[in-house]
């Protein structure tokens, strides 16, 4: 297997977008190709993350449509669906395609268009990322599943409501600095704590945003990467793991086994330790999810993850800033785009191009992308060019 690097990255602003699902994908793809200085004819394979095109806008089979709109020609096009980890899976398939020598250039994108649906309809569409037979049928939604998880985490590990709320405050403070974020403004601790309840203990500001958007990256072999970008970003690890989505199948709902496994595998591939990571994009579909992921990935001991945002370790300026993009919480969460958008953010950071939210001297970044209530997890570790 050969080394793989990122030589192009593109994104659309996240939020309520007028463009169609396919057009959003094509815009991000063109931005990424332009960033790489490559024409579409150079791409050998296209991998697209998309969760629910059919359910949200009545369109499936969108990988060849986005490819056609991008001018990719007859290249193999594959759509990946792993709920909110769809983008991370697309990234991993692209990495494998280039690493194996199958293609020299792979284009990876993720896209979702969600804001056209009513909120309760969206909740029902998203609920299909869980085990419908034993969860959605009972009235469970994703906020409800994470409400159950949060309450148990508080009970078992002493995590406080304030600690959970601090994640939202932090990620909004970061997102305010990201011109592509869906919501670019601060929220205060009382606003989060006193917000309208969604599924207690979680309120409105504990939930990620319902957004439209797309992101894309171009991959090529590391050995030729410097010919295509002056600051290629190397893929140091690409790992994936799975588990049952149903909470009733899990022995412990305060941890996600798939995150633990994918994280261990990623650190092993990269030959790095937790202390080597300068920043991370963590799947904060809910505030609680960021805390659990920080514990599952080994950055904090079990029950200590809440300290990250409260004590500032995970804030910009802290030891390991988390979700400098604003995360799903503030940048937005167009489901299929999220995993690729995390890679996009790390790419900017590792090139030193993240503007007001730049982590000074960032050399190693980790992206954690979680599907459903922990059934699919993709973890990537990226490194700056020395």
């Amino acid at each position, binding site marked *: 297997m050969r080394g793989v690097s990122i030589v192009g990255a593109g994104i659309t602003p996240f939020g309520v977008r007028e463009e169609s699902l396919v057009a959003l994908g094509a815009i991000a793809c063109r931005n990424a190709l332009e960033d790489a200085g490559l024409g579409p004819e150079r791409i050998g394979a296209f991998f697209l993350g998309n969760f629910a095109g059919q359910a949200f806008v009545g369109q499936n089979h969108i990988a060849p449509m986005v490819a056609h709109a991008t001018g990719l020609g007859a290249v193999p096009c594959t759509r990946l669906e792993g709920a909110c980890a769809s983008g991370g899976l697309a990234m991993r398939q692209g990495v494998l395609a280039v690493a194996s020598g199958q293609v020299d250039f792979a284009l990876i994108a993720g896209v979702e268009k969600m804001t056209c649906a*009513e*909120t*309760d*309809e969206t*909740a*029902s569409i998203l*609920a299909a990322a869980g*085990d419908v*037979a*034993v*969860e*959605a*049928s*009972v*009235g*469970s*939604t994703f*906020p*409800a599943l994470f*409400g*159950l*998880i949060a*309450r*148990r985490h508080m*009970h078992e590990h002493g995590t406080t409501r304030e600690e959970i709320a601090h994640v939202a405050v932090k990620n909004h403070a970061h997102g305010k600095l990201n011109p592509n974020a869906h919501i670019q403004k601060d929220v205060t601790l009382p606003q989060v704590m006193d917000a*309208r*309840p*969604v*599924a*207690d*203990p*979680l309120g409105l500001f504990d939930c990620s945003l319902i957004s439209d958007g797309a992101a894309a990256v171009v991959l090529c072999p590391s050995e030729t990467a410097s010919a295509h970008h002056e600051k290629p970003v190397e893929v140091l690890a690409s790992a994936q793991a799975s588990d049952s989505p*149903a*909470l*009733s*199948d899990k022995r412990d*709902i305060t941890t996600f086994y798939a995150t633990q496994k994918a994280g261990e595998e990623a650190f092993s591939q990269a030959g790095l330790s937790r202390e080597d990571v300068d920043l991370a994009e963590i799947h904060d579909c809910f505030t609680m999810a960021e805390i659990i992921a920080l514990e599952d990935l080994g950055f904090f001991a079990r029950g200590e993850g809440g300290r990250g945002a409260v004590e500032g370790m995970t804030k910009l300026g802290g030891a390991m800033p988390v979700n400098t993009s604003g995360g799903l919480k503030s940048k937005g969460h167009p489901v299929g785009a999220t995993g690729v958008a995390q890679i996009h953010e790390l790419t900017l950071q590792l090139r030193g191009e993240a503007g007001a939210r730049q982590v000074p001297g960032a050399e190693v970044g980790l992206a954690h992308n979680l599907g459903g209530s922990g059934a699919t997890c993709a973890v990537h570790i990226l490194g700056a060019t020395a």
Partner: protein
Amino acid sequence: METFVCAGCGRIYLEQSERCGHCGAEMEERPASGRGIVYSFSSVHMGARGMPTPYLLALVELEEGGRILARLADDDESEPSIGGKVIFSGLSDTGPVFRML
């Protein structure tokens, strides 16, 4: 209370079927007391399409072992709590319902 437990994956069902809807293995009948404790719960205020809110969801740990996601009857005056005792009160069109003891 009658439960049907999958011999393969251990999933618990309240309605009989020949094979597990999850893994396809054969099912075993298992009598249950209907008693359990609340493993976690959430009061859902913004719910799934067509389901009136608020409603109480709970992950219930059955006395005989295993957990199921269920509704907690909302006609109770008592507040749910983790570890609180509950008893099976029947199947509704949204699945199993427990009430607090």
